């Protein structure tokens, strides 16, 4: 059989099969890299502030790559549109968030979490002073996707989720386009404390689907070599095995 394998035709076929197997192995490695990459940390990227419009567009969902990103935006706060959220935990202490309605130069609305207060009265005081004099329009902070609205006893002052779709209904001025996420300001106005917004936690894990695909490619690579062996053997059998004559 190996005499057949040594013929130029079958050596060329072997080289072709090896090249194909090499290609499959490379694809397997690519899948293996991807299986780590899908869960790779992107810490540095999130910590350099970029313009909000580079990472997110109004009226669209927040892309995964923008979650936790430090962003800059400019906008004017709409007075009268401040909302106080309850049961917001800041550094383990429950308290209140003051959330503002900023309108960017393009006219799109952005929900901004300005700061945290330990008591409802302190939050209400802060809202009063914000209504009197709005903070300046240069906004920098961490951008996060909206939370889901939740049923709450809002009539007695309980409103605990930072849900942009809910806020839209509370704002007096109807927005002309709204961002799908909200900003946590990196400097709190007077009377409020800075909201702790740590770097996004980098999940380290494996994408199992990609791992399986990597294994599959390795099997295919082995198969390419096996096919060459099989074809050589077929050629050898064709020459050496007595043929079965079809009966007519």
């Amino acid at each position, binding site marked *: 059989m190996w005499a057949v394998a040594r013929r130029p035709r079958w050596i060329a076929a072997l080289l072709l099969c090896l090249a194909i197997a090499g290609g499959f192995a490379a694809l397997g490695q690519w899948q293996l890299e991807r299986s780590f990459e899908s869960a790779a940390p992107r810490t540095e990227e999130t910590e350099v502030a970029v313009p909000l419009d580079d990472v997110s567009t109004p009226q669209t*969902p927040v*892309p*995964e790559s923008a979650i936790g990103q430090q962003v800059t935006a400019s906008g004017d706060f709409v007075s009268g549109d401040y909302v106080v959220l309850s049961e917001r935990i800041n550094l383990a202490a429950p308290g209140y968030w003051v959330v503002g309605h900023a309108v960017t130069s393009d006219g799109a609305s952005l929900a901004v979490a300005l700061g945290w207060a330990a008591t409802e009265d302190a939050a209400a005081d802060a809202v009063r002073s914000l209504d009197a004099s709005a903070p300046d329009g240069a906004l920098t902070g961490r951008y996060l996707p909206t939370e889901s609205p939740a049923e709450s006893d809002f009539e007695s002052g309980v409103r605990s989720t930072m849900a942009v779709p809910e806020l839209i209904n509370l704002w007096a001025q109807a927005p002309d386009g709204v961002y799908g996420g909200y900003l946590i300001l990196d400097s709190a106005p007077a009377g409020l404390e800075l909201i702790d917004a740590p770097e996004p936690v980098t999940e380290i894990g494996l994408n199992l*689907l990609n791992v399986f*695909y990597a294994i*599959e490619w390795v099997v295919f690579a082995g198969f390419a070599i096996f*096919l060459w062996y*099989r*074809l050589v053997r*077929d050629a050898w*059998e*064709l020459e050496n*095995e007595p*043929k*079965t004559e*079809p*009966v007519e």
Partner: protein
Amino acid sequence: MPIGPRPEDAPKIRRTIAVYKVSSIITGTFLLLLVVMMVTRYGFGVDIELNPVYGLQLTPKELITGVNLSTAILIAHGWLYVLYLGTDFVLWRQIRWSFGKFLFIALGGIIPLLSFFLERRVPRDALAAIAPLEKVAA
């Protein structure tokens, strides 16, 4: 030039043909679903979602809360095609067809609708290949 099947393989080949038929129908169906899924995802930017509340609906990928059937079809077709290739390989080995025939049958899982033609043609060719052998045995 193909060498042709061994006489003693004839009963095995009949079994393989039956498995191949089932496999080609399943693969062909999933390939059509794959075409639908590709059109909705890359043509219209939506995936097929099975939502526990609203049932089947078309939703942009990022907004899906239920089961993403588009991705499920993609993965299922990938694995079912490997099974199809497996039956193709076994059949090709048993009948000892030419290598080109193996590659041609393999295309059935890649070119939409082709598998439905192959589902009829391949068993016919296979039966034709073993018919003379069974005549000898009988």
